[in-house]
């Protein structure tokens, strides 16, 4: 374990991914679920950067994917927070269990 290589990076990113999955499954508050999604997206970004650095150093494609993922994550967070604020106006709560009007 003396040299840091690709496997160590991938282990960190996969642990981060599954922490995000755990948070997404257990939390019932919409803002904290959004935070878990951010963790998952960040673990994917670490993967892209690590693969680009250690395996394909002659290209920049992983870096572009990371830039586009960060952009789309920002747009997604903005839209999600607009939805959350609108939901709070209607239900006075942002718990996913409380928004059950359209539940079958």
């Amino acid at each position, binding site marked *: 374990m003396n*040299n840091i290589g690709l496997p160590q990076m991938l282990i960190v990113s996969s642990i981060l991914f599954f922490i995000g999955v755990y948070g997404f499954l257990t939390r019932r508050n919409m803002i904290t679920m959004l935070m878990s999604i951010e963790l998952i997206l960040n673990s994917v970004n670490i993967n892209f950067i690590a693969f680009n650095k250690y395996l394909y150093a002659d290209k920049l494609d992983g870096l572009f994917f990371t830039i586009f993922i960060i952009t789309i994550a920002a747009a997604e967070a903005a839209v999600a927070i607009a939805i959350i604020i609108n939901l709070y106006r209607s239900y006075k709560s942002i718990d996913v269990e409380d928004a059950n009007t359209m539940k079958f």
Partner: protein
Amino acid sequence: MNASTIIFYVLAAIILGGAVAAVTNRKIFRAAISLLFSLIGIAGLYFYLDYQFIAAVQIVVYVGGIVVLIIFSIFLTQESGENMKRPAIGRVLFSGLAALFGCAFTILLIQDYQFVPTTLAAIEPTANNIGSQMLSTTEHGYILPFELVSILLLAAMIGCIVIAMKIKEPATNIIAPNALKIGDVTYTEVTIETIKEKVI
């Protein structure tokens, strides 16, 4: 165990500790601050890998944008000092097991796999190289996704405004402030004289 290895493990500890605190802390504001630390640790990891541009983008967009947006919406919608409800024990157990087994499976696969690095000369990920390849129209350019993302951002901006906009009640039966309605007849521009004249 040289300095670079130690730095990597410190960064990994910051990232994973922040992430665990962000998904388990019952005070929502502290969870958001833990997420902030985790994201800063990820930016540090990009610095560690010599990708300064991505690290700067990470700090600007995530730490400066998304976390501030999340904290802002916490203040708008939550009582941030109070503890959140404890999640059901069955849900914690089964999602914990799912995450644990998924993680163990992935790590086993990673450790067995033989990665073959390229032998070609490396490109420096400077802002110059990134910019000229991203905006080039040749075979390996990224101009089309760049334009698509700009349209996506515009659509997201308009969508946010439309979703969060408060719709006013439709204005019906508005009577001017100095009007007087008696029976079916509405008198506008009511003064003392008109009241004396028409009502009394």
